[in-house]
């Protein structure tokens, strides 16, 4: 047939190889390769011999041995006169050469010649080569010929099919080569009488539809027309009937094309036609016994169902689809069931509701225990897709029930699915924590790192869960056989939040220490390293433990593992430093900013920045040391913001309307020079920026460093900026400063007479009022009228005396310019000097502004009456 039978040498060679043992095969192959190489070097090689030896090379190549020569001989065969020789040449070139090979230019020339030939076999074989391995250069060179062969009426159908696929290869890989005007004629070819030209073109159209939405309308009409013809049993020859089904491949492709452009099916008559066609397609599902026939029918059915849902998911087709799907899900044949699961999961992912699925839940669950890994995977996917807020808990319960019986690969899959389900559907944190702990406990071996990392992240970011999860984990850690994932996540959280349960029975600091210590010995290096850090954190929060912890570090400081040794030594050193340094190192982990995998649910909400949050509740940064200076400077324009034994930071401010300046002066209070001094904004807001800054990082005692900030326009509400200063004074030191830039700085004091004030007060109404009643911070604080008035004036309120009936009450007004808009603000403050209480009411034309002003003022007043002040 294809190859001349006379290639006896090849047959002998193959027989030889077959009779040899595995280990002798390579020897024989090498002998043969040497022989062929020698033959190729001789100048008198006949075309027949060349074919024979190249064939041998191909066989050797297929067995998996690399072929490093003979490429030129293969290319020479391309131009051979005999078809069988040419054929071997093309086969060899396709297998041995890639598109960047040196010889590819020669190949391209041969292909071009064959495309121009009048012999359809030569055309075919060349087109085949283009479709299989055409690189850019080849595609550019042969494009005109390929296009010519496809469009010309003189071309035989079998060549046109091949030309269509070659052109598709060009359009797929290098869309710029193809003339855009050619797309419409190609779509027209969908109608071709020859079903296989139509089939080849349908693959092409599928790609056009993905790339060119503008052509959807045309494609849609053509595809419906063709599908209707086929389904109604017309327009094809009996040759194209595959086991009683007319060309199932074309039907499948047409359905896929229509699915891609179904949004174009808008006018009623087209829609009716399509529904009618689909109805017929869905009705052929009968008792068919013959496997091939059933296969072909099902191939079409699955596509028809997807399309029917897309076109019309509530109408007459719906029930039919449901029946089909139901039957297929329950089908005993693994292929059908697999595809039914796949299709159903796809439909759910498209947003279709499939209520009858509930009746099959047991069946889908039981598929989790099949031997067939593909089917298990699909059923898990489907269960995952089926989950909604309503049934999430029961599905998760079911999945957990199956967990212990699965192999490790499926377990891993199931665990990550369950973990993400709990995160999506958690409405109470106990459920979330319980389920995740169960995963870690039952199948710790199969839990991958992502799962426990995400669990820790969620716990850290949600304060309400911390105590509960630490308590649960601590209990689980008491068991001797815990998997490392559980040890890691449990101990990590114990290090962070162990103090939350330190007062509970049998979970005091000592027990916590012992629990971690016990796990230390039996753990892997990775875990050990983590546990050492946990011990450091424990000793920071519970100073009583320091001696014990230090002895553990000592023990590990001679570990043979360098990573463990280094940590132990470093931590040991840390313990000997002043305790406030340790507390800086062991600061609580900040909230993770890594986005949660999926949209969090009710309890896992971002720490809600409500306006009643006080100023100093900046969770990410510790700013406590600068707060007293901050409060004072909120109502003063000049003063000391921060001072300790080493540095002092002074501030001078100036604000008018919505502009302002802030200058900071840094002074070194020690006698020695600090190095690496830097000051950077950790938090800022739009338009607030550094104007000018010191350039020298050397901070000598006689020098004052300056930094100037400006804000050129206030265009919204903001949080006070945070500046971090750091320097080397023997050890690295850093302080976070909250800068006294608050909303009231921008206020313009105003004075109203009684009637104007009350008129505006009444107009703003209760709904725009922020009222807070509170006492002072600190036992020794004493509310004092003179200071109170001074602060209120400092906060830029214009006092309106004598308006209030009660003379002790203080009334004031001001105007804020935000985003070029004037916002009026009114204040009424009722102090109770005996009880040290204040009731504060602020009304404003903007409710949010009223809230911000009130909470700021509350913080400032609460903290400004210490007896020593």
């Amino acid at each position: 047939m294809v190859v001349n039978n006379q290639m006896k040498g090849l047959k002998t060679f193959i027989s030889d190889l077959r009779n040899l043992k595995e280990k002798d095969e390579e020897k024989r192959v090498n002998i043969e390769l040497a022989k062929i190489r020698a033959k190729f070097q001789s100048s008198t090689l006949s075309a027949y011999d060349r074919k024979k030896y190249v064939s041998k090379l191909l066989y050797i190549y297929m067995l998996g041995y690399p072929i490093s020569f003979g490429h030129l001989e293969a290319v020479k065969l391309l131009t051979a006169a005999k078809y069988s020789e040419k054929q071997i040449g093309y086969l060899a070139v396709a297998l041995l050469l890639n598109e960047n090979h040196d010889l590819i230019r020669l190949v391209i020339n041969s292909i071009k010649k064959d495309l121009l030939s009048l012999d359809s076999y030569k055309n075919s074989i060349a087109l085949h080569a283009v479709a299989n391995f055409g690189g850019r250069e080849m595609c550019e060179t042969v494009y005109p010929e390929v296009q010519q062969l496809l469009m010309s009426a003189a071309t035989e159908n079998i060549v046109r099919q091949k030309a269509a696929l070659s052109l598709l290869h060009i359009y797929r890989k290098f869309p710029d080569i193809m003339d855009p005007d050619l797309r419409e004629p190609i779509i027209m070819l969908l109608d071709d009488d020859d079903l296989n030209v139509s089939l080849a073109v349908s693959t092409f159209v599928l790609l056009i539809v993905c790339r060119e939405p503008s052509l959807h309308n045309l494609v849609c009409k053509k595809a419906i027309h063709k599908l209707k013809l086929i389904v109604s049993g017309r327009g094809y020859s009996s040759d194209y009937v595959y086991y009683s089904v007319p060309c199932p491949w074309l039907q499948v492709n047409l359905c896929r094309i229509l699915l891609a452009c179904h949004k174009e099916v808008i006018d009623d008559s087209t829609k009716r036609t399509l529904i009618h066609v689909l109805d017929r397609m869905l009705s052929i599902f009968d008792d068919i016994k013959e496997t091939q026939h059933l296969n072909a029918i099902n191939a079409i059915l699955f596509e028809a169902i997807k399309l029917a849902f897309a076109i019309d998911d509530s109408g007459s087709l719906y029930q039919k689809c449901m029946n089909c799907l139901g039957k297929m899900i329950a089908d005993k044949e693994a292929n059908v069931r697999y595809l039914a699961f796949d299709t159903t999961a796809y439909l759910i992912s498209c947003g279709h509701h499939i209520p009858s699925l509930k009746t099959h839940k047991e069946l889908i669950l039981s598929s989790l225990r099949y031997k067939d890994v593909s089917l298990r995977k699909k059923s898990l996917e489907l269960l995952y897709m089926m989950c909604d807020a309503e049934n999430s808990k029961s599905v998760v319960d079911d999945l957990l029930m199956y967990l212990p019986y699965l192999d490790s690969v499926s377990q891993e899959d199931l665990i990550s699915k369950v973990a993400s389900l709990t995160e999506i559907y958690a409405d109470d944190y106990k459920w979330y924590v319980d389920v995740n702990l169960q995963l870690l406990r039952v199948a710790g071996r199969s839990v991958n790192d992502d799962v426990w990392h995400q669990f820790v992240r969620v716990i850290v970011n949600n304060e309400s869960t911390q105590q509960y999860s630490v308590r649960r984990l601590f209990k689980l850690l008491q068991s001797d056989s815990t998997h490392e994932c559980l040890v890691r996540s449990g101990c990590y959280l114990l290090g962070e939040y162990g103090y939350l349960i330190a007062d509970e029975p049998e979970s005091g600091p000592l027990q916590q220490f012992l629990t971690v210590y016990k796990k230390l010995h039996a753990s892997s290096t990775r875990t050990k390293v983590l546990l050492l850090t946990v011990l450091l954190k424990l000793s920071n929060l519970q100073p009583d433990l320091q001696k014990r912890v230090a002895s553990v570090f000592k023990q590990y400081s001679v570990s043979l593992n360098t990573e463990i040794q280094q940590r132990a030594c470093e931590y040991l050193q840390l313990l000997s430093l002043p305790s406030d340094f340790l507390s800086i190192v062991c600061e609580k982990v900040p909230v993770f900013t890594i986005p949660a995998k999926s949209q969090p649910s009710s309890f896992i909400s971002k720490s809600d920045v409500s306006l009643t949050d006080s100023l100093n509740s900046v969770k990410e940064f510790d700013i406590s040391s600068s707060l007293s200076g901050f409060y004072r400077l909120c109502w003063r324009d000049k003063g000391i913001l921060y001072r300790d034994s080493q540095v002092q930071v002074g501030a001078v401010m100036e604000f008018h309307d919505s502009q302002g300046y802030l200058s900071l002066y840094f002074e070194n209070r020690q006698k020695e020079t600090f190095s690496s001094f830097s000051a950077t904004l950790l938090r800022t807001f739009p338009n607030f920026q550094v104007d000018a800054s010191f350039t020298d990082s050397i901070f000598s005692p006689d020098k004052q460093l300056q930094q100037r900030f400006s804000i050129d326009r206030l265009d919204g509400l903001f949080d006070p900026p945070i500046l971090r200063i750091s320097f080397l004074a023997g050890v690295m030191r850093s302080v976070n400063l909250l800068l006294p830039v608050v909303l009231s700085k921008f206020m313009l004091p105003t004075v109203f007479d009684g009637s104007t004030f009350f008129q505006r007060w009444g107009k703003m109404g209760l709904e725009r009022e922020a009222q807070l009643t509170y006492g002072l911070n600190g036992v020794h604080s004493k509310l004092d009228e003179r200071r109170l008035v001074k602060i209120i004036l400092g906060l830029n309120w214009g006092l309106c005396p004598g308006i209030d009936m009660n003379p002790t009450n203080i009334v004031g007004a001001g105007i804020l310019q935000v985003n070029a808009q004037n916002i009026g603000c009114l204040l009424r403050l009722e102090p109770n000097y005996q009880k040290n209480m204040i009731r504060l009411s602020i009304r404003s034309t903007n409710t949010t502004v009223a809230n911000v002003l009130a909470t700021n003022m509350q913080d400032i007043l609460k903290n400004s009456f210490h007896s020593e002040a």
Partner: protein
Amino acid sequence: MIYAIFIFNNKGKPRLTKFYTPIEESDQQRLLGEIYHSVSNRTAASCNFLESSLIAGKNRIIYRQYATLYFVFVVDEAESELGILDLIQVFVEALDRCFNNVCELDLVFKFQEIHAILAEIVSGGLVLETNLNEIVAACKNQMPKTKRPGGLNFGNTLSSFATRF
């Protein structure tokens, strides 16, 4: 599209490998090994599909077993699974007609012809022709008619298994 087609026997010996997407030579044999491993371990009751990430990211392995031979197609999302199963059937039936009761030895000794027949069915990774008569005619017309070589004892033909599915 179809990324690759393999035919190998139940011991993992390749009888045909064809790639429609460029794959490094060194990876080709590794791929074959991995596919053989995952396919040959499956029971007869399992479905004929496997998800994998062996070629070009996510793809699917669709296979059928006939007698001692596995026919394996690695395809992307755009192919219908059952459509490919049907195509494998067409391929086997075409081989059967061309070789008159095809068996593994035909594939061994006439591997070039197998490639030629495949070229009539799949081109550039896409389905070209599905009509058996056309395929067989195209193959037979291309070259002079040949006779079956005598002397080899062919048994265990694929066609007797072709109806199993």
